[in-house]
């Protein structure tokens, strides 16, 4: 294990190189919050195509399945889904 990421007040360990979505899944975190559309953000396709696993780090919203874990990272719900 290489460090911890922070989600909703929990410090969660991760394996070196794995994605945020992957670490959260292991910790039993299946939902990343609700989007403005009502969609529950969560892991679905795992390869950055479905845009369902959006999560916020700092100011930026990005796909949790493509975001590599870094020690001390703080993640928060994206709170605002995508639309056109």
């Amino acid at each position, binding site marked *: 294990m290489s460090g911890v990421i922070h989600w909703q007040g929990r410090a969660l360990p991760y*394996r*070196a*190189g*794995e994605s945020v979505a*992957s670490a959260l*899944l*292991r910790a*039993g975190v*299946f*939902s990343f919050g609700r989007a403005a*559309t*009502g*969609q*529950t953000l*969560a*892991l*679905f*396709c*795992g*390869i*950055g*195509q*479905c*845009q*369902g696993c*959006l999560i916020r780090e700092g100011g*930026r*919203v*990005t796909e949790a*399945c*493509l975001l*590599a874990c870094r020690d001390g990272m703080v993640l928060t719900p994206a709170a605002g*889904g*995508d*639309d*056109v």
Partner: protein
Amino acid sequence: MMSERPVVVVGAGLAGLAAATELARAGLVVLVVDQAQAAGGAVHRQPLEGVAAVASAAQARRWSGVMAGVQAQGARITLRCGTRFGGVDHTGAVLLSGALNALIRPRALVLAVGAREAVQPRPGWTLPGVMTAGAIQTRIKTLAEAPPGRVLLAGSGPLLLAVGAEMCRLGRPPVALIEAARPLQPLAALGLPLAYLAEAAGYLARLLRARVPLYWGAHLTRIETGEAGLLAHFDTSKGPRRIGAEVIGLHDGIRPNDAGLTASAALPVLRLGDCREALGARAALADGSAGGAALAARLLGRAAPPAAPELDRQRAAQARLARIYAHDGAARLADLPDDTVICRCEMRTLADLRALGPAPTARALRLDGRFAMGACQGRFCAEWVGRIIAPTTAPQPIGATRWPTRPIAVADLLAASEDLEGETE
């Protein structure tokens, strides 16, 4: 970065690296980018550091061969992982974001972004814990880990057998495997390549040894939250059943991952491998090599090499596999409850679709219905919207291709270093 304008290859899987090797072999400079942290694509997704590989010896050999081919080209091929392709515009400018942030004008663009899965909408398919079978396979390959809790696999396609068998190998057999088709047809299977049969037999053997309940000709009808985790309801030939699970891996087929891929008048843009035609690993390798060689010939003004026969062989094999796996599960779309979500991104339901009338135009679907207007560009809903509206017609994308190819962070667009001096040819 590079004094010569490179050919940009998007996707460091079999097709992309095979193409890059041929391009470099012809003397061209190649920049390969991939959104993942390492090369491998989907088929050869690599284990993370310190993780025991789950790949077979044969698979490992094939991948070593591919990587050796790349390494033999030395500095002509640059590989940048953790880098996403944002699209190509009509001037021939390509945006790359991530580990490499650049706006460049390559000599040519190869798109080798592989396949994605089709997942048929069912009530409850948007609940957390419901994911694609491919997402589970990704986890297994990178971490040698199954998802936590009870895992159910459902839908249709050989991938279900593969994922189920891989889970058994890890000591975490799925609670059941629900397959809509009845693929155990010995006569039909005889026409398949031996390698396919051997693989399938191996998967089946593992599943049977682990006593995983296998339901053929069975259809997952709905998912709801249970007392603990999820509850999956499914129809079998012997009547309705239900089973509890924390994670449900759905899969209803493989499709080219070609949504949002555009052409450009300013430079050659080539699709290779599964994103052009989903034919699997062997075809991707052949398509990549042949496509790369053909592109190199075109760019250098040389004669084009002959086409590879491998693709025809794989096409025939895939067609046979499709016949073996044929089933009428799509007919169940008509019986879905009105509140079933069809477009995940916008949470648009079957009722919303029906409200548009019997033959809505693409514009009505998007502007009024808001289908395919979400961030995934209709990747996951367009096929089913099409099948519901016109069951007998081949599904189409809904409206014009959206651009850019994926959502791009404003910060990334502004951070890209600009290198657009190269003239288009």
